[in-house]
């Protein structure tokens, strides 16, 4: 499992490829599901020109790792990668990449979806628009229902 938060521009495809080459044995996984979240130039009907993502160093990484571990405990996943961009960004910038490798694709889909969903809920990454704080509803009805423990 690899998790990190970066202020640098994020090349999601390169991160996934590099991790696959360095950490996954050849010919063992049947598939990988990758989610890439990108910055849109609108939000709730308003134009957005730039965005600043803030995080809580230490706590954010710990909680992303915890979410990945939950996914790996729940599904038959060989490895997971999460890279989250923080700091100043502009529309079309990739903000986050989540990848889950597994022997069978259903495990990859379930794990990847679980991670991005709960990562948005719990990982202390906060969004500031130019004029106001943007508070997202991260609800995704496609994710397995699971009671969240707010206390770690």
């Amino acid at each position, binding site marked *: 499992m690899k998790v990190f938060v970066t202020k640098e521009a994020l090349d999601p495809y390169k991160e996934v490829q590099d991790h696959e080459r360095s950490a996954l044995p050849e010919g063992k996984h049947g598939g990988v599901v990758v989610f890439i979240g990108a910055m849109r130039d609108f939000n709730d009907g308003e134009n957005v020109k730039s965005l600043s*993502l*803030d995080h809580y160093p230490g706590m954010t990484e710990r909680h992303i790792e915890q979410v990945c571990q939950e996914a790996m405990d729940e599904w038959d996943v060989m490895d997971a990668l999460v890279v*989250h961009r923080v700091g100043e960004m502009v529309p079309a910038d990739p903000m*986050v990449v989540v990848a889950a490798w597994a022997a069978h694709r259903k495990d990859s889909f379930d794990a990847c979806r679980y991670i991005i969903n709960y990562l948005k809920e719990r990982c202390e990454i*906060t969004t500031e628009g130019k004029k106001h704080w943007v508070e997202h*509803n991260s609800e995704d009805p496609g994710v397995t229902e699971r009671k969240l423990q707010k*206390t770690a």
Partner: protein
Amino acid sequence: MDIKIKYFASLRDRMGRSEDQISFDNDNVTVADLWGKLSDEPISENILVAVNMEYTDTGHKLKNGDEVAFFPPVTGG
């Protein structure tokens, strides 16, 4: 004892700062007591609190050197 405080997202705007450092003379201080020193407004039910990067509640008793973080209820990237 010395306590370090961090504010995130809209709470930072509301407080007008991102961090505080406060000293208490006595050792019997909860998160709720701490909030009373930081703000005139009562703490909202929905605010999340972490002490040393673990979520907890406002009854949590603080120790010297603790780092306390306050988050608005739902924020996402």
